């Protein structure tokens, strides 16, 4: 890959997965039409899901998943020491994701319910940024591959990247969708960070807020607007808590 006639250096990238569904990693292998170019721009040294070899020498570490056990925390700290740039890839890594729902119940009891008299080791779910310093957080459940590629290009060319300041609602309107809220469906689009291109409202389902709050979102104001429209408190609370991304944003 060349930029302005200059061959940029190929940074060494390593991909690691913690507690998650590996859907974000899968996005890296998807978009097959650009995969080969993508691989030409970077050098992948560790990607356990698709490679046997694993190198310890990398500049950029992409972290998928939340942290939910002591061994995960130790490995994450080791990665932080080695990598120049640590990227939280996806909502699980950025916020804890759906795993965070686990923090709302008693783990001893949950363990007994799932594993009977053979409980397993587990701990409270934390986002990557709760454990080590994160240089770049790319939200999304899953991440949007086109956005990840844009960001990697910025990193390779050493140009700062910034997320759009507007919410998903703007992207939804750009796609000429009929607003679902007007048809009685709950949607968090007006308060959620854009960058996904609004696949959910476009596909006929309200936004669930997987990308977390938009930079300038006025969350309390939108919540009272939803209340006025007749959406129940339970429904709204369940939606905001779904990906663990609105803790602290709800006033």
């Amino acid at each position: 890959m060349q930029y302005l006639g200059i061959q940029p250096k190929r940074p060494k990238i390593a991909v690691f997965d913690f507690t998650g569904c590996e859907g974000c990693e899968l996005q890296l292998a998807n978009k097959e039409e650009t995969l080969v170019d993508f691989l030409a721009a970077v050098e992948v040294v560790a990607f356990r899901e698709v490679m046997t070899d694993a190198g310890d020498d990398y500049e950029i570490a992409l972290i998928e998943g939340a942290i939910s056990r002591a061994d995960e925390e130790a490995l994450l700290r080791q990665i932080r020491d080695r990598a120049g740039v640590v990227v939280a890839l996806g909502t699980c890594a950025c916020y804890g994701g759906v795993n965070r729902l686990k923090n709302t119940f008693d783990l001893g009891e949950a363990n007994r319910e799932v594993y009977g008299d053979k409980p397993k080791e587990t701990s409270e779910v934390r986002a990557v940024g709760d454990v080590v310093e994160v240089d770049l957080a790319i939200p999304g459940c899953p991440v949007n591959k086109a956005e990840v590629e844009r960001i990697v290009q910025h990193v390779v060319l050493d140009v700062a990247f910034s997320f759009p300041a507007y919410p998903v609602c703007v992207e939804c309107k750009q796609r000429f969708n009929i607003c679902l809220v007007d048809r009685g469906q709950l949607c968090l689009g007006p308060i959620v960070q854009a960058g996904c291109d609004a696949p959910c409202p476009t596909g006929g389902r309200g936004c669930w807020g997987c990308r977390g709050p938009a930079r300038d979102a006025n969350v309390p104001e939108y919540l009272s607007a939803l209340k006025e429209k007749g959406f129940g408190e339970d429904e709204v609370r369940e939606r905001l808590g779904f990906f663990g991304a609105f803790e602290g944003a709800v006033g």
Partner: protein
Amino acid sequence: MSTVRVDIHKLTRVEGHGDIGVLVEDGKLKEASWEIVETPRYFEVMLKGKHYTSAAVLTSRICGICSIGHTLASLRATEHALGVEIPRVARKLRLLAKHGETLQSHYLHLFFLAVPDFLGAPSAIALIEADPELVGVAARLKRLGNTISEVAAGRMTHPVSLLVGGVAKMPERTRLAEIKAELEASLELVKKVIETFATLEIPEFARETEFVSLGGTEDYPWIGGRIVSTDGVDLAEADYLQATNEYCTDGNTSKWTKLSRESYAVGALARLNNNFDKLTERARQVARDLGLTPVNHNPFMNNIAQLVECVHVTEDAIRLVEELLDEPKGIETMAPVEASAGRGVGAAEVPRGILFHDYEYDESGRIVRANCIIPTTQNNANIHHDLGALVEEYVKRGANDEQMELLCSMLVRAYDPCISCSVH
């Protein structure tokens, strides 16, 4: 006599985290184990209290590779519990979305996870240089799977248009026509893949196994049906607990299951062993050409069974798209849904085998109790027992540490385990 030791921590090129341990001393098998070390996730507990509109959105996140399968089993369980009958056209759209996932998942496994071993490459990335044409074909086939799911379900990973009551909307006709053309072209492309597979050396090995899958349906089974096995089991979908008999073991974060024997297998090979006659003629011919006829007891043949299913699914997807193109404009894709108390079970054949979701709802439409049984959970015990038999067989043939490590890794990869799923 020989000593063979294999100790693999976090096997690569599988989905999730698992360990293989093998020890042979003086030619005698001391230990052969397959252990799941992935962190447990507790989805069944997270589901409690969730509204019926959330259940599938949540369980989709059990697995990024078979998220459509989880979504469909979840919706089916909820719809059974609430007494909802979805429109006929929604059933077709769901099956089409499912076919897209099967294609993308099978091709991902075959090319990126399994084939490098057979061709002696550490990864598919290395194959780009060795056989660019093959990788190009693989990428195009896999992308077709993505596109189909995107068209039918709005997104491939964590679909958005599959809702309780049906499917949110009908895809645009132009996009349906596009995937039909690409599907037809892919039947030619896949020939190159079949040629390549015909040259692969599948390890010689067999262990008599009970194969469990859905069946009892007119067509090759994907969504719903009866639970059948090669040992003659025939159960209703709702009686899945009698088929699975889950239990916990020390060490493993995944549970084990058993039916007529100490373990059983699910997946492409199980589906094919139970439903060979329902494959398309072309798919059956490919199976015969590649030496696969029922009942086949070689777990390495699961790779071949996946390829045969790709051919079948491609042809069936063409049929579905043609039927969808014939549907009148503005046809209803959603049925009305109302909250009510009740219990429902939903089964689906996802790429790695039979998947069950089981929910109990209260009158307000919130989940009181949930249970999910995952294909890899059902395969784990069988993989464990296969490993022992494989090692004994190949010790006799004089395999060394390195050869044994490769064989064991290939065996586990042949099951295409989805470990983060199995510790949901």
